[in-house]
């Protein structure tokens, strides 16, 4: 207690358990523990009547000699560390989605901060490249469930708290709205857009606040999403997965990433993937040009053909013949550098071909992931830049090893960044193609990053972001709406800051996820099939997992376990029909209702018929409007690596965000910094100099009338007279 100028301030020196239990829970529901503090205007008795939730306080005041008391809220005079004992934290039930880079840090910080009931979902298992930052994991845990190992590790230093782990996909149907409803707050540490959207919808449906996060390198971001109070995760555009025009990939690459996409999506998929999949590679060889449609596929290995011969044939076809073919179209090369055809005989002698590689060193056939062309060729450093000759040797060696040691998998392989042989093959093929087109070559290390869409990640950013998440989670639990902040970790100092808070967005009134605003779809109803609509819009764009499509009262399509055979037959027949010839025809002006029962998310789509689509810019053959996604640039003009792990959609090289750990956050610093922006940095009061009197009493006296908000000079604080305090006033002061 300090007495100066007749003012009395009551401090709670700590929230000891005894004191804690004497304060009713409702006290802690005051925003962010801006509690107490005293004096004048109202008597203690009046106070008790006005604020009937203050009996324990009046006890303290009754010992005071001051006859009259006013209360105002002052920001956080409470020691934060004492919050560990607060019922708002101890009693909170928290769901964490993701136990990766952010997840490990977050689980640790939550446990230290006093959280006692934590649930954690993660479908992944531990890999070696996780160990540099996911500090709860050790070498011996490689291959085990992240959620479970993280739980066990944290229980070692906080044995008495409850942590439930789920080694499962958050999109599984048992994690439904009811499951989400049991939590006070959901904390995301996810690695992909799709799962984030899914969790966002479940949180909206269950009305549970969500704290969302992401990091890449030194950049990080934390935001709070509370239904009705702030924007939802999908209110604002997100960087969309990168797509490249088909012809850039097949004929006119200008960047290394184009060569990677070609090597991964086309060549690798053609040679080792599902043979029935559409592929834009030119399969015709010189002998078969002009012959029938059933022309022989040069990628098929002929009977009695040695692996060396086969390799040379493929090599010469894709790097030699196909380039010659492309060169014959002179129009293409008027404004571009002409590529150079490369034939194997010019790069690598027959003799060297024979002695290429020592398969004994290549790894055992028993463990496919131990097979490596680099090992058998004696190449060691993945950061080395290989010559064209080396790349060619890796190309042949990798092909040989696939056929020699992993033949069973051929026909069913998908590119995987953790499959060393696949990475070697794709690197070599991309580099040879790059050499042909005069594009600088890249090391295996770099190529792997691009092909696997590997997110740069360091422990420090994850730790900082996890700290920021916990701070926001505590505000959410204390219903301190005014203090919610979106925070950015920056790589370069901006406005003197490395960690920059901004006010959260308001809900976007036309957000199709949280506001039910209908979308518009331009589509050729006479040519597009229902299947195209399901794949390209409902799944790819709307991220629905178990959709149901209705036209008025008639069901056109649904997914579920409880369907009978007749319905399944009916729906699969519908899938193959064009929209206008469905049982209940979909034409211009029709409104479709698409619903995901698990996400409890419904969305209306107005159909607008359109016949012409630009193949390069609108490769889907349909355009969705009103969907908050950054429009993909038709021309690739940034240097960001593409996202993707081989979602082999056929016309364009569409890629999904795979991201091994955290996630791509795009931070537009200028946008944050711009004043007058909706997300105004809460900075303005800082700049205004001359603070009024610092004395709380004086300030109150000066504003004795019904003033709700006074700047008291401690420039981050607000004084609000408590007897006027209610939810409504609070609302008005919120985010403008």
């Amino acid at each position, binding site marked *: 207690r300090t007495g100066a100028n007749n003012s009395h301030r009551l*401090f709670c*020196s700590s929230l000891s358990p005894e004191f804690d239990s004497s304060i009713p829970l409702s006290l802690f529901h005051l925003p962010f523990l801006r509690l107490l503090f005293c004096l004048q205007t109202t008597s203690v008795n009046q106070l008790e009547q006005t604020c009937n939730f203050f009996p324990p306080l009046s006890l303290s005041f009754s010992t005071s000699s001051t006859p009259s008391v006013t209360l105002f809220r*002052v*920001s*956080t*005079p*409470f020691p*934060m*560390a*004492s*919050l560990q004992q607060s019922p708002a934290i101890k009693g909170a039930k928290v769901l964490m989605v993701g136990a990766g880079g952010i997840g490990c840090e977050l689980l*640790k910080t939550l446990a*230290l*901060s006093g959280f006692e009931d934590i649930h954690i979902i993660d479908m992944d298992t531990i890999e*070696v*490249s996780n*160990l*540099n*930052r996911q*500090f709860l994991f050790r070498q011996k845990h490689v291959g085990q469930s992240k959620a479970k190992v993280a739980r066990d590790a944290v229980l070692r*230093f*906080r*044995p008495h708290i409850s942590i439930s782990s789920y080694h499962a996909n958050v999109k599984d149907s048992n994690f439904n709205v009811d499951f989400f409803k049991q939590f006070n707050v959901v904390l995301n540490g996810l690695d992909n857009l799709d799962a984030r959207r899914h969790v966002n919808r479940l949180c909206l449906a269950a009305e549970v606040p969500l704290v969302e996060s992401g990091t890449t*390198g*030194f950049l990080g971001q934390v935001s709070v999403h509370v239904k009705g109070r702030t924007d939802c995760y999908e209110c604002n555009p997100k960087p969309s997965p990168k797509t490249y025009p088909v012809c850039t990939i097949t004929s006119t690459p200008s960047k290394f990433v184009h060569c990677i996409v070609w090597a991964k999506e086309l060549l690798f998929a053609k040679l080792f993937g599902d043979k029935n999949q559409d592929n834009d590679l030119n399969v015709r060889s010189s002998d078969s040009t002009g012959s029938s449609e059933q022309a022989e596929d040069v990628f098929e290995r002929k009977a009695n053909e040695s692996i060396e011969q086969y390799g040379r044939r493929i090599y010469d076809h894709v790097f030699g013949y196909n380039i010659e073919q492309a060169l014959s179209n002179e129009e293409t090369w008027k404004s571009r550098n002409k590529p150079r055809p490369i034939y194997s005989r010019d790069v690598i002698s027959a003799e060297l071909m024979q002695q290429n590689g020592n398969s004994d060193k290549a790894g055992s056939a028993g463990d496919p992931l131990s097979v490596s062309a680099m090992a058998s060729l*004696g190449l*060691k*450093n*993945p*950061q*080395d*830049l290989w*010559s064209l000759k080396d790349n060619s040797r890796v190309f042949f060696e990798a092909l040989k090893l696939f056929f020699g040691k992993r033949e069973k998998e051929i026909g069913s392989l998908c590119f995987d960044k953790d499959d060393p042989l696949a990475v070697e093959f794709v690197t070599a093929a991309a580099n040879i193609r790059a050499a042909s087109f005069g594009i600088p070559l890249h090391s295996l*290390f770099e190529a792997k990053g691009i092909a696997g869409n590997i*997110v740069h*990640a*360091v*422990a*420090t950013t994850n*730790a*900082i972001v996890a*700290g*920021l998440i*916990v701070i926001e989670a505590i505000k959410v639990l204390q219903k301190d709406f005014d203090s919610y902040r979106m925070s950015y*970790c920056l790589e*370069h*100092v901006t406005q*003197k*800051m*490395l*960690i920059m*808070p901004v006010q959260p967005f308001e809900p976007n009134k036309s957000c199709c996820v949280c506001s039910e605003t209908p979308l518009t779809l331009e589509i050729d109803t006479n040519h597009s099939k229902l299947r195209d609509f399901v794949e390209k819009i409902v799944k790819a764009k709307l991220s629905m997992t178990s959709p149901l499509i209705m036209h008025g009262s008639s069901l056109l399509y649904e997914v579920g376990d409880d369907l009978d055979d007749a319905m399944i037959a009916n729906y699969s027949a519908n899938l193959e029909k064009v929209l206008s010839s469905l049982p209940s025809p979909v034409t211009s002006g029709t409104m479709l209702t698409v619903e995901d029962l698990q996400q409890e998310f419904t969305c209306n789509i107005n159909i607008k018929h359109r016949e012409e689509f630009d193949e390069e810019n609108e490769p889907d053959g349909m355009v969705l409007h009103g969907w908050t996604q950054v429009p993909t640039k038709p021309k690739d003009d940034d240097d960001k690596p593409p996202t993707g792990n081989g979602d082999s959609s056929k016309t364009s090289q569409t890629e999904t965000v795979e991201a091994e*750990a955290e996630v791509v956050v795009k931070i537009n610093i200028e946008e944050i910094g711009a004043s007058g922006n909706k997300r105004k940095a*809460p900075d303005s009061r*800082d*700049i205004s100099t001359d603070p009024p009197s610092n004395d709380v009493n004086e300030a109150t006296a000066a504003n004795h009338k019904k003033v709700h908000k006074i700047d008291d*000079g*401690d420039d*981050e*604080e607000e004084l609000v007279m408590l007897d006027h305090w209610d939810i409504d006033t609070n609302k008005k002061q919120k985010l403008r």
Partner: protein
Amino acid sequence: KPSFGLYGTRKTFLFSSDSSKPILPCSSTLSEVGAGLQREFGFPVVWFGRCVIQVQFTDSGISRVLGFSSLLLNCLLIVNLVTRVRLEMEGEQLTEQETALYDRQIRVWGADAQRRLSKSHIFVYGMKGTVAEFCKNIVLAGVGSVTLMDDRAVTNEALASNFLIPPEEKVYSGKTLAELCCDSLKEFNPMVHVSVEKAELVTLGQQFFEKFDVVVISSCPPATKILINEKCRKLSKRVAFYTVECRDSCGEIFVDLQNYKYMKEATSAPWGRLQRRTSKLYFAMRVIESFEEANGRNPGVFSVEDVPAVLQLKRKLCEAQSVSESFVPDTLLERLVIGSIEFPPVCAIIGGILGQEVIKAISGKGDPVKNFFYFDVVDGKGVIEDISSRAPEADSASSKSANIITQVVLE
């Protein structure tokens, strides 16, 4: 015809057919070097003695032994005739194991930075929650060694915010904080050498710090910090010096990379010369330090009874520095006094920023903080304060200011 010979010991060669990229890791043995030459240039290579590679040309069917040298410099000269070759004498390349483990972070700061990290030695004093977070970060990042010092025994406070200490009495009893943290840190990354030194911090001689590239000091009085800072400054070698403190919802990092202010100067800049926008925490921390010093308190040992005295000291200091009392908000001081315990989310944030700064300093990548960093939960800002640039004629002025502070404290 070009020819070359090479002389050297294991693990010192890097070859390349293009100017920058090596074709052989320098962990290669000589026989691998030979095989690499053979592969790259198509020359057969024979051995001569233990460590000389001799190249023979077989063109026109004649096997000729061409000159080689026993001196590295000569080799370089000759080799340059053939192709551009880079020899990296210092530093080995990352091993396969390191490349696999550090893959994601090498993508952030590059292999060179990773190599420098793995050769750096770090000294840490004061094992509280924030420092535990920091140690975790740099051990994960893969520094060469971390030396811990803190002879205190485990307290409840230490248990509350330090995840490195298991809360079982049978584990922690009889061990110092540094020993317990060391045990846990070792597990995080077997490639980092973590050890404990037992000593009185103030008695350590200058030469003790010579072993280190980075010195981080926490939870000790400002006078001790200044003393260590000055010892590090006197070394011929550049040692990056940091102090870090967390109190409740606030944290402070001081950075001295030996290119601007000493800690002593930076903490005694005249307040009147600093801009109004200077973080309030800068002043508040100086008031708290002065109070601790005047009352002979250990850092962070406070109770609510101290509030009036701290506020009074603040008024005096403001008066002596001729600045308005609003420079140091009472509520902020109250928070710092009442909540002297660390708040775990702030530990994570401050420990993260400090880890990042140390990595920047070692790797030479990125712009290091100059020279204070502050974070406060209440406004959520992580702010950089450059105190050195604000006080141009600092030397005389800051000693005057230091005198003012001392006088006030003595009174």
